[in-house]
């Protein structure tokens, strides 16, 4: 079934994942490390971990979330957060994932995600991408004025204020949320719920490869291209 005649070559789909071109690839010398990568003997044996924000555009098949979560646990990818929600296209959702992995690990995660049937396209976001997180904080209600002041300082909103507790909502990048949580500690934090990042590429860059900004009502063409 997979036999392909040569003269049919031109008719074949060509939009797979290409891999980087020669000049984009490192050509290190030396022995391999435990990840199969040739390393400079002088350099560190294990590649460093970094955080990456991945965005996947998926079809809303039943079980898509569990397939993605299952992939992460089965392949031992270190996942920090995962958010999911609908897009402008019917039956499509966007999943934003933050993972902490070495470069080869991030590359593997992307490729393995791209292989899942409901995944239309997947890509890593640049550092300049717009990313934000939402957090709900429930604190003791003894000092409502002060709580209000801190909430204002962090551009938050009070969602619920009762005689004993106050619940506020904050959004922003990780640093801002961490700082805010620190600031709220003085009141006694009772409960926290954080969503993890959701993100979009900045400007007219596509968030996932093949996604065309400004044509939201046109379905995205599947591409697993880089």
């Amino acid at each position, binding site marked *: *079934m*997979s*036999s*392909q005649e*040569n003269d049919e*070559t031109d008719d*074949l*789909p*060509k*939009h*797979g*994942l*290409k*891999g*980087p*071109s*020669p000049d984009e*690839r490192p*050509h290190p010398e030396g*022995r*391999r*490390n*435990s*990840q*199969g*990568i*040739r390393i400079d003997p002088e350099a560190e044996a294990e590649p460093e971990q970094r955080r990456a924000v991945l965005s996947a555009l998926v*079809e809303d098949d*039943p*079980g898509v979330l*569990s*397939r993605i979560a*299952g*992939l992460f646990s*089965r392949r031992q990818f270190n996942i920090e957060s995962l958010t999911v929600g609908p897009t402008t296209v019917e039956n499509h959702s966007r999943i934003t994932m933050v993972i902490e992995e070495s470069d*080869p690990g991030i*590359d*593997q995660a992307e*490729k*393995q995600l*791209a*292989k*899942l*049937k*409901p*995944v*239309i396209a997947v890509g890593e976001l640049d550092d300049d991408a717009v990313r934000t997180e939402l957090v709900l904080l429930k604190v003791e209600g003894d000092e409502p004025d002060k709580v209000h002041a801190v909430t204002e300082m962090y551009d938050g909103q009070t969602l619920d204020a009762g005689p004993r507790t106050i619940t506020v909502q904050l959004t922003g990048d990780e640093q801002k949320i961490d700082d805010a949580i620190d600031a709220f500690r003085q009141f006694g934090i009772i409960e926290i719920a954080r969503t993890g990042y959701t993100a979009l590429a900045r400007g007219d860059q596509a968030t996932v490869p093949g996604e065309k900004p400004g044509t939201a009502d046109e379905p995205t063409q*599947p591409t*697993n291209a880089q």
Partner: protein
Amino acid sequence: MSKQAPSSPNATTEAEVDPDEEAEQAPVTTGSEAVIRALENEGVEAAFGVQGGAIMPVYDALYHSDIRHVTMAHEQGAAHAADAFSVVRNEPGVCLATSGPGATNLVTGIADANMDSDGLLALTGQVPSDMVGSDAFQETDTTGVTAPITKHNYFASDADTVGDTVGEALALAGEGRPGPTLVDLPKNVTLDETDAEPGPAEPPETTRPQYVADEENVEEAAEAIEAAERPLLLFGGGVIKGDATEQARAFARGHEIPVVTTMPGIGSFPEDDDLCLSWAGMHGTGYANMAITHTDLLIAVGTRFDDRLTGGIDTFAPEAEVVHIDIDPAEISKNVHADYPLVGDAGIVLDQVDDAIDASPDADEWREQCQTWKDEYPMDYATPDDEPLKPQFVVEILDEATGDDAIVTSGVGQHQMWAAQYWTFTEPRTWVSSHGLGTMGYGLPAAIGARIAADDDQDVVCIDGDGSFLMTIQELSVAVREELDITVAVLNNEYIGMVRQWQDAFFEGRRMAAEYNWCPEFDMLAEAFGARGFRVDDYDEVAETVEEAVAYDGPSVIDFHIDPAENVYPMVPSGGANGQFALTEDQL
């Protein structure tokens, strides 16, 4: 090999009247009929399975179909048989099971197919949709259980679309890098009325692989090959699955590059060719492993660099840059970093690279060196007459007694390694074994699937271990009922031998739970099933008995009582360096 369904005589007569004209198909009226129609549309000839409550509607639709159904003794057997069918035919095999225990019994076979990238479509019955989630009788979350071991699985929700879903699942199983897919079929969906004829079977848009490699990358890889001093080709199972053996052979011979295969790649290149160094890895030949250790450019095609092949990654092909051709981008640099990644179909990319090469690498010395290693580390075993029977000898005699294109299936253990080492494979799709998952009990059901897929004049031999044979021995009843011409050679050491070998080597000889000296008399057991049974203890009886068993037109079992102390060598200890293989126990 005649079909048992009462409807078939009728169908045959019709076909005889006018063989060219396709018999007018009755319109689809139920979900089940749509399921079967989707299989028929794709030319599915055989399916393997076991009946049961939730799958009964599908079987009812099969009653009127020309698809040959083989009832297996156990669903694991059905999955393995379908898997082996796919290996031999190079198209997805089909298996069926009922919900709950039927579906869970398929799991080992599905996982096996997944690890070996074998195309497989599993159709499972399910409790009616409105009872799903209620822990109904024979309910299991089949899509949940099989999600991690399938390429994709589907829960059919509607009789009007179920035919298309089955077509898509079948197409997806065979597309690109093949693998298992599953469609879970709630009983109401298969019973519901529909007149929706399934459309053309197409894989989902989101999974389309890339067949042609990036030209810039091809140029660069070609330059690396031209410049290599010690080039080595490594052919994996992908060469066979990609139907690229012709291109692979032409490439190797055209540029005179020595060839090593992986175990699933056995048969991609003839093992009796001077350029062939056989297979590499834990129990691969010394010369294959030496070549891997010393090559400066490893051209790997359709392999996923399994650890049984590579040993310790940090010592794998230590001097080599790697060209990696694979249709699955996720395999590139997964285990071994690819210096020259080429994503695409094996045959197409090999031709692309071939076209891009201006001059073959200058590697006379290297080829000579490889030849020297062949002489230095020959595959050998001792056969003094007074010693108990050696399994390697049995394998060699079986090889001699059967045709060049004979198909060999195996269980998992020492016997599997001896079969792979001492049989000389020359054709693709003649070595059918459980590689990635290493499933004991694979051999006999695989022989059944292979027999049904094979040409009538092709011999099918199952080389099994006593332990492996016992795991799925009930399938002998199927071979007898279907009158399948299969020869089972049990290399009986009354041990689960591979475990014993490791216990002796790495656990100071504590043979905990490795003895099988309560083994039944396999020859008598075979007769009890209705097969022919033989027992062989001595060298003198081997050739004659093998001849008789192979000549017998039906299933036969030869119980070879082999030297229980025999071990598999060479051996690269797990995680070790390929170049440091042990040829005897003392070297471990």
